């Protein structure tokens, strides 16, 4: 397997009166061709910022401070703005969390997909429309011909998300970044959209970077999982290995607190506390303040990367391989 996207030591920060506050702090991972990599973490862990940094879409005044993002060997962080614009959409596309608000309310949805196609490819309007129609069929929009001329407010949330996916796929990107693609949808629609993403990924052999906080979705869709906490990766592993044998105390805590796995009649285990905000990150291990297995070294030294098994990386002083 070859990496289509290589992220190395990525650091993104927002300026503040007390100096720059990092939100992504030295994240490295590879996204391989044809795989689904799930980026998992609580709200505020920096997973969305990691994806936006890779697209160079970090909202102002934040900026990528250092690191490297290579797409097929091309360094994206050094590309001129116009070149980067050509990469976005054409080679890396993004599906957002909120299908309700991601479509321009005053433009017909078909028109919006047609524009996306014409933006990156020199095709006639009729051709782009025909392709949009095919895409609508592919993402399972019923009655595609009529939907082409619908305005966003005439479509349901699930349909809008399908339109968004159609738009993201319109230029056959190598990488699809899906930022919590099903969070805003209800459960049955969620399942449909996940199934759709899986089918599309298989058919097109695209790589998907799936950002989510829902381990159920991870189990459903991901090949590999990267767990993030407070701007850093804490554990990376194959899905099955990670779910059955989590090494990092944070991952263990996450898995323990899945309602479906809890024993009936007992209180649902939880990880005490909340993710500290970036300006209050501890000096040592970021998870030290909430970790049940903390030792003294955790407070002072940040743990180095260890690779206890093939395809697995853990950042922890005390990881011991004991099951959840």
């Amino acid at each position, binding site marked *: 397997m070859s990496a289509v996207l290589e992220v190395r030591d990525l650091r993104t920060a927002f300026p503040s009166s007390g100096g720059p506050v990092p939100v992504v702090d030295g994240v490295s991972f590879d996204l391989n061709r044809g795989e689904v990599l799930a980026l998992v973490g609580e709200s505020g862990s920096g997973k969305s910022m990691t994806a936006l940094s890779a697209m160079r879409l970090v909202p102002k005044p934040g900026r990528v401070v250092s690191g490297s993002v290579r797409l097929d060997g091309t360094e994206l962080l050094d590309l001129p703005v116009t070149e980067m*614009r050509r990469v976005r959409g054409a080679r890396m596309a993004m599906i*957002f969390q*909120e299908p309700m608000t991601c479509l321009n309310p005053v433009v017909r949805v078909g028109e919006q997909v047609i524009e996306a196609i014409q933006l990156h490819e020199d095709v006639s309007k009729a051709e782009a429309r025909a392709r949009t129609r095919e895409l609508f069929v592919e993402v399972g929009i019923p009655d595609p011909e009529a939907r082409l001329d619908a305005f966003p407010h005439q479509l349901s949330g699930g349909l809008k998300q399908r339109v968004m996916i159609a738009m993201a796929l319109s230029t056959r990107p190598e990488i699809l970044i899906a930022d919590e693609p099903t969070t805003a949808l209800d459960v049955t629609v969620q399942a449909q959209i996940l199934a759709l993403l899986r089918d599309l990924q298989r058919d097109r052999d695209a790589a998907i970077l799936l950002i989510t906080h829902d381990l159920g979705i991870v189990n459903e869709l991901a090949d590999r999982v990267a767990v993030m906490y407070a701007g850093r990766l804490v554990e990376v592993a194959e899905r099955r290995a990670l779910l059955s044998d989590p090494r990092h105390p944070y991952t263990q805590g996450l898995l323990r607190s899945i309602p479906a796995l809890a024993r009936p009649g007992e209180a649902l285990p939880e990880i005490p506390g909340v993710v500290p905000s970036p300006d209050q990150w501890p000096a040592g291990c970021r998870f030290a303040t909430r970790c049940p297995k903390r030792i003294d070294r955790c407070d002072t030294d940040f743990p180095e990367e260890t690779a206890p098994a093939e395809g697995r990386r853990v950042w922890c002083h005390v990881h011991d391989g004991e099951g959840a």
Partner: protein
Amino acid sequence: MMGIEAYVWSNAMTGLLLVGMLWAARVVRGNRLWREAASELWRRRRLAILVVGLYLGIGVADSIAWVGGIPEDAVGVLPNAPLSIIDRLFLDTREASYSAPLASVEFYGGKPLRHPGSHLLGTDILGRDVLYMVFKGARVALLIGGLTSLIAIPLALFFGVSAGYFGGRVDDVVFFLISTLAAIPGLLLLIALIMVMGRSTVSVCIALAVTGWVGFCRLSRAETLKLRELDYVQAARALGVSEARIIFRHILPNLAHLIVITFVLTFSGLVLSEATLSWLGIGVDGSWGQMIDGARDELSRSPIVWWNIGAAGTALFGLILAVNAVGDAIRDVLDPRTMRGSE
């Protein structure tokens, strides 16, 4: 004065305006959202729309002029002067001096009129038919409201949208401009500008535009700030859409309802401002403001000459009331917060 006579320009502009209105009507018909809004508007404010239409019709009729076709014995017109449709309707209606509405003799002195009983609103000091003057004023009012908005709104949009969208330096510069303009008393600046540019219809419009664009600039800046952060703008960026295209495709169309509302609401304010300027003696010739200004002396006569100011005031009042009523309804229909569901 110019190579081409002024009335030719006026005719051309009127033609352009009519074509523009037809085109706008086509656009509205073509877009379901706008079409629904338009029919809702018609349902709510039929009378006000008809009144505005009447004023518009008079204004247009007074803007189409041509030379010739004047009877040789007509009093008070040069044979080669370009006359508009309205001018021709009131051709040869001049009296010697004041006469009351529908009177058959002069108001002071009681000499018989040339056209007894034909002056619906009487005549003014120079014997001109007041109804005719009121009709002439409609064109001036519409011209002031329309031309000024045409200058002020694009100006405000340009500065407001660029400040809101790009932020940073651009925003600082625009805000400095706005604050500076806002710090100068509006009326003072108006008078100064008109004095510098000379007293013509166009210069009054420019002066009103320069002093009047600040409010909408703030509004469009604030709205752009909001739109800029919306998901579909972010999504457009993620698709690799250029900044200019985002502005024209995603920001401006979503400001359209604000532009329409602002246009209608500033329009009436501008017509009123002109009346103020006329009161100060620097207004536009032939405006209702000037008629009202002229009536200052008439009100102190005995017996009082009331029809002049009455007619001009009523005409002004009618236009402003109708435009405001339409404007309110437009806001209700177009503003997403007060819009009824159209699922």
